C-alpha cells in the first residue's frame, strides 16, 4: 500500500508539471487588426425631394462608413443623427423635411475603430422644380441602337450648353467610325414637363427622367429619316465618383452578392430581345442565374462566374471574360455607362452573330443595402410615365407616349405615336410586380420587366406578335 501512495504522489507531481506546461499557451485568441481608418475627403451633397445624395472619396483602411447629420452646423458623432452605414462611397439619406437645411459628415469605420469625421457639407431638400433648360446643360454619354436598313449601334460623349446646343466630343459606331454623322444631335429644348425635342428633327421625342439627378434622357427618332432608333443619354453628374465597391457584392453578413438583371434588344442580323439575371460577388465576378430569349440561349458560364466587371472613376463599366469559363456570353459590354444613382448601366455592343445590341443592366438593390419588402411595391410603381419603345417588326418602328399606372398595376395609355404615324392606343394591360422588382403581364408570358430601385423607371422586353420584338423604357414623370 505504501508504494501505491508513493507512486500516486509522484503522479500528482506530473499533474503539477502539466499545470506549468499549460502556461505554454496564450489564452487570448489572435484577431486581425487593420489599424485605424483614415478620414474620408471630398464629401459632396445634392438635394432632392425629401432626401439628399452624398458622395465622397474613399478613406484609407475603411471597411464601411457612418453618415451623420444634424440641422445645425458643427456635426459631431455624439450629438448628430447617425444615418445609414454603407460600404460604398455614396448613399442617399431619405426621410428629410423639405425646406430644412441639413449638415452632413461621414466617418470611416473598420474592426479597429471609427475614424475622424470628413468635411461638413449642407443641403436643403426641396420639392422638384419644373424641368428647365439648365437641366440639359452638361456632359452626357450616349448609347444609340438603330434598327432597320441602317442597323448599327453608336455611342460617345457630347456636351450641351445652356442654349441646348449639342457638341459631340467623342464617337464610335459598330462599323468603327469615329466621326459622328452630321446632325446626329441638333439643338435640344426641354419643356417644363420634361419632354425634349431637337430642332429640325421633327420625329425626335425625348423624356428627361425626374429622378434625383435628372441624369437620364431617353428618346426615339429615325436615323436617316427611315431607320428607327432609340437614344439613351446619361449625364456625367459633377461630384459623383465611382469605385469598385459600386460593382461588387458585400458578402453574406452585409447584403450578399449584388443581384442584377438586364434587358436588351438586337438589331441587324438577329433582332430578338433577351433578358437575364445574375449576381456579382465580392471579387467583381458575375455569374448568370438565368437567361431568356425567343430562341434558346446557353447559360453563360454554366452557372459559374463568367465575366469580371471593372469600372473607371468616371463610371464606365467594362466586362472581361473569366479565363476558361464557358460558354462565354454572346456579347460583352466594354463601354457601359453607370448612372449617377449607381443602379443602372447602359451599353451597346456587337454580339458573336454580328447583331447589334443595346443592353440596360439594373441592380436590384445597392451593394451594401439588403433588399426589403418595402422597396418594390405597387404603390411605388404607380404614377405617370413617359415611355419610349423600339420595335423589331416589319417594318421596324419606334414609339413613344405617356402611360398611367395605378396602384393595382392597371396601365392605360394617355398618348401614343409610332414611326408609322399611328396614334391608336395599344390595349390597356395589367402589371404584376414581385419583391425583386420583376414585372410581368398575365396573358403575355413573353413580357418581362424590371422596376428600378428608386422607382423612377422600368425597362421591359416582350413579343407583340410572333417575330415582332419590343424594348420598352418608361420614365416616371
Amino acid at each position, binding site marked *: 500500500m505504501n508504494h501505491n501512495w508513493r*507512486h500516486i504522489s509522484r503522479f500528482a507531481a506530473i499533474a503539477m508539471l*502539466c499545470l506549468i506546461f*499549460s502556461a505554454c499557451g496564450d489564452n487570448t485568441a*489572435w484577431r486581425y487588426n487593420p489599424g485605424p481608418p483614415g478620414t474620408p475627403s471630398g464629401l459632396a451633397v445634392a438635394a432632392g425631394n425629401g432626401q439628399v445624395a452624398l458622395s465622397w472619396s474613399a478613406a484609407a483602411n475603411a471597411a464601411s462608413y457612418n453618415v451623420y447629420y444634424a440641422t445645425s452646423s458643427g456635426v459631431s458623432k455624439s450629438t448628430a443623427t447617425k444615418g445609414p452605414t454603407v460600404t460604398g462611397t455614396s448613399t442617399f439619406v431619405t426621410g428629410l423635411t423639405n425646406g430644412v437645411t441639413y449638415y452632413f459628415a461621414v466617418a470611416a469605420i473598420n474592426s479597429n475603430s471609427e475614424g475622424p469625421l470628413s468635411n461638413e457639407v449642407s443641403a436643403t431638400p426641396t420639392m422638384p422644380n419644373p424641368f428647365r433648360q439648365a437641366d440639359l446643360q452638361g456632359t452626357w454619354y450616349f448609347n444609340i441602337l438603330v434598327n432597320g436598313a441602317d442597323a448599327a449601334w453608336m455611342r460617345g460623349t457630347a456636351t450641351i450648353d445652356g442654349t441646348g446646343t449639342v457638341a459631340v466630343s467623342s464617337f464610335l459606331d459598330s462599323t468603327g467610325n469615329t466621326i459622328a454623322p452630321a446632325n446626329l444631335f441638333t439643338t435640344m429644348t426641354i419643356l417644363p414637363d420634361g419632354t425634349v425635342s431637337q430642332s429640325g428633327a421633327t420625329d425626335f421625342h425625348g423624356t428627361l427622367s425626374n429622378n434625383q439627378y435628372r441624369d437620364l434622357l431617353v428618346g426615339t427618332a429615325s436615323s436617316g429619316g427611315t431607320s428607327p432608333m432609340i437614344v439613351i443619354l446619361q449625364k456625367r453628374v459633377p461630384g459623383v465618383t465611382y469605385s469598385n465597391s459600386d460593382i461588387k457584392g458585400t458578402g453574406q*453578413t452585409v447584403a*450578399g452578392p449584388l443581384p442584377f438583371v438586364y434587358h436588351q434588344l438586337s438589331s441587324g442580323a438577329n433582332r430578338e430581345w433577351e433578358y437575364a439575371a445574375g449576381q456579382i460577388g465580392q471579387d467583381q465576378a458575375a455569374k448568370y442565374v438565368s437567361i431568356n430569349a425567343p430562341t434558346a440561349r446557353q447559360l453563360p458560364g454554366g452557372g459559374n462566374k463568367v465575366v469580371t466587371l471593372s469600372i473607371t472613376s468616371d463610371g464606365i463599366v467594362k466586362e472581361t471574360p473569366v479565363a*476558361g469559363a464557358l460558354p462565354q456570353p454572346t456579347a460583352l459590354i466594354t463601354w457601359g455607362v453607370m448612372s449617377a444613382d449607381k443602379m443602372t448601366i447602359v451599353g451597346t455592343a456587337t454580339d458573336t452573330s454580328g447583331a447589334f445590341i443595346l443592353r440596360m443592366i439594373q441592380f436590384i438593390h445597392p451593394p451594401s443595402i439588403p433588399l426589403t419588402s418595402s422597396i418594390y411595391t405597387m404603390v411605388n410603381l404607380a404614377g405617370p410615365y413617359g415611355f419610349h419603345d423600339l420595335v423589331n417588326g416589319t417594318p421596324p418602328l419606334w414609339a413613344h407616349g405617356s402611360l398611367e399606372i395605378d396602384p393595382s398595376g392597371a396601365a392605360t395609355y394617355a398618348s401614343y405615336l409610332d414611326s408609322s404615324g399611328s396614334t391608336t392606343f395599344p390595349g390597356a394591360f395589367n402589371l404584376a410586380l414581385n*419583391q425583386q422588382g420583376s414585372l410581368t403581364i398575365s396573358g403575355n408570358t413573353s413580357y418581362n420587366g424590371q422596376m428600378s430601385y428608386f422607382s423612377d423607371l422600368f425597362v421591359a422586353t416582350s413579343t407583340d406578335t410572333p417575330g415582332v420584338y419590343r424594348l420598352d423604357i418608361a420614365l416616371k414623370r
Partner: protein
Amino acid sequence: MIQKRQLCALFMVLFGLFPPQQGAAAAEEEEPSDTYTLGEVVVSGKHDGVQATQTVYTVTAEDIRNKDARTLDQAISLLPGVNIRIGPEGTPRIDIRGFRTRHVILLLDGVPINSAFDQQFDPTIIPTENIAEIKLTAGSSSILYGQGGLGGVINIITKKGITGIHGTLSAETGDHEPYLARGSISGGKDKVDYFLSGSSSKVNSFPLSRDYTPTTEQSGGYRKNSDRERNNLFGNFGFTPTKDLLLGLSFSYTDGNFGKPSSVINDPFDPFASPPKYERIDDFKGFSIQAAGDYAVTDRLSLRGWAFMNRLDQHDNQYDNGFFNSFNLVAGSFRELVTTSINGVSLQPKYDLGRAGVVTLALAGEWDNWENNGQQTTAPNTFAPLNTDKNLAIYSAGIEYEVSPLQGLGLVAGYGHYWQVRNEADDNDYALLLGARYDLFTGTRLKASFKRNIRFPALGDLYDLPQGNPNLQAERSNTYEGGVDQQLPLNSKVSLTGFHTIAKNLIQNDQATARNQNLAEVRFTGFEVAAATQCVKGLLLRAAYTYLNSEDKSRVGRDQLQYSPRDKVTFEGKYDTDFGLTPYVSLLYVGNQYFYTKNNVTPVLKAKLNDYVLVNVKLSQRFMNDKLTFYVGADNLFDQNYETSYGFPQAGRFVYGGVELRL
C-alpha cells in the same frame, strides 16, 4: 520562453521519477469481449507482414476507457501524426501527417464510412462503446485497403462476444451534457457469438473558456448552436460452423441531430474570417450492414470476403440568421436532404507459400451514390432547386506479396490497379508498395517503405454545382518513410519514424474559373518519436512528439499548408492502484500552425494560431471486484481558450462524472 523550454525539457525526463522495478508489469483491466477479426482488412499471419514495415498505431478499448473518449476523434487525438481540427464545417476533421480527412480512409470492420459525396466523415457519430481497437496506419498502407488513403487508414475493429454472457451499463453526466447512457451485452456458446451495444447521448452546448472574448456573434458562457443528440445501435454475430469457416454479420444504426457553431467573427472586412453561417444537421440517420466470411480452403489457401451496404441521410439546413427559424430571406440559405450510400463487395484470397512467403489478392467493387433534394434561396423568397442524383463505381484489383527470405528480414511488395467508372468518362490508375523490415538486434527493428498511391475524385468533386468538374483526374502521392522500433528493458519501448510525402494533382477550387481542378501540390516532411513504458506494476506512461514541415505549392503567396501544426507533443499517464483507484492524466501541446487570408484576398497575408496545451484528467474508483466503477474527470482542466480554425473557439473546461456497471 527560455524558462518554459527548460520546464518542457524537465517534463520530458519524467520517466526518471518512477524508478524501475524488476519484473513489473501493469495490471490491465480484463475485457469481457474479444476482437471481431472479420473486421480486419489486413491480417498479420505467422510472418510479421506488411504492417511491420509501416507505421501502425493502436488504440485499445482500455485506452478509450482511460480517457473517457466518447467519440472517434477523442479516442485518437493523442496519436502521433494526428491533428484534430474543427472549422466552418462544424465537425471535427482528422488530419494525418498533414493530409486532410478526405485523404484518410475510415473503415468500420472493413466497411468504408467515408461519405460518397466528399469522402470526408464525421467522427462524432461513431460511438466508442463497441470499439475493441482502432488501428491507425499513417502514411504508407497496405495495398489491400484499395485506392484513397493518401494520408493513412483508420480501421475500427469492433468487439466480439466471448464464452458466457457479459454486459455493461454506464451513465454519465456533465456540464450542459444531460446524459450519456451506454450499454452492451455479449456472449458466446459453442459456435455462436454475439455482441450488441447501444448508446444515447445529449449535449446542450459546450462551455467556452472564461478567457474567451465575447463578440456580437457569440457571447461568453456556452457556445451557440453546439447542441448534439445521438443514438446508436450496433451488433455483430459470429458463427463458426466448422473450424475452417468463420461467418459474421454486423450492423450499425445511428441517428440524431446537431448544430454547426458559426464563426464568432462577424466582420466582412476581416480578410481572414469566413462569414458566419447558421447551419444545422437537423436530422441524420445512418445504417450499415456487412456480411463477412473467412474460409480456410486448404492449409495454405484461405479466402476472406465481405459484402456491405452503408447509407447516410442528412437533413442539412442553412438558416438565414441565428434565430434558426427561416430559410427564405437571405441569398445562400438552403435546406436539403443529402443521401449518400456506398455498397461494395470484396474478396481476398490468400495463399501461404511457406518459406516462399504469402500472396494475398484483393478484388473489390464499390458503388457510390449521392442524391440531393432541396432548394437554395437566391434572393428573398426566390429559390433555385438543389436536386442531384449521381453515382460512380470503383473496381480494384490488388496483389501483395510478403516474404521473409532471411532470419529477421521481411519484405513486402504490392501492386493495385483501380478503375473508376463514371457516366461521362472512366479513369484508371495504380498504386505501388515496397516495404522492408529488419531486426537488427533482438528488440531493434528497422523498417522502410515506399508507396505510390492514388485517390479518385469523389462525387462532389465531380458534380457539385457550381464548382464540380466532371473532367477531374486522380490525385497522386509518393510517400517515403523509414524508422526504428526499439524495445527497452522493463517493458518499455521507443520508436522513431521519418517520412517524406509529395502529393500532386490534388483537387482544389481554381479561383480563376471557380471550378475544381487538379492543380494542388503539397509536400510533407517530418518525424514522429513515441515512447511507452510499463516499468512499474499498474503504471502506463506514454509520450510522443511529432514534427511536420508542410509546403503548400498550390497557391501563390503560401508556403506552409494552413492549419497544419509543426509541433505536437503528447503525454499520457495512468496508474492502477491495488485498491482500485486509477488516476489518469493526458497532455496535448499543439504549436506553430498558420493560416492565410481568404482565397479571393490579395495580397496574401499569413497569421499564426495561438499554440495551446490541453490537460485532461480522470479519476476512477473500482468496487465490488471491479464490477462497479465510479469516475469523475475534467477535459481541458486548465480552461485553455484555444482555436483550431480562426474564429472558432473550442470547448473550455468540461467537468463530468459517471458510473459503469459490469454484469
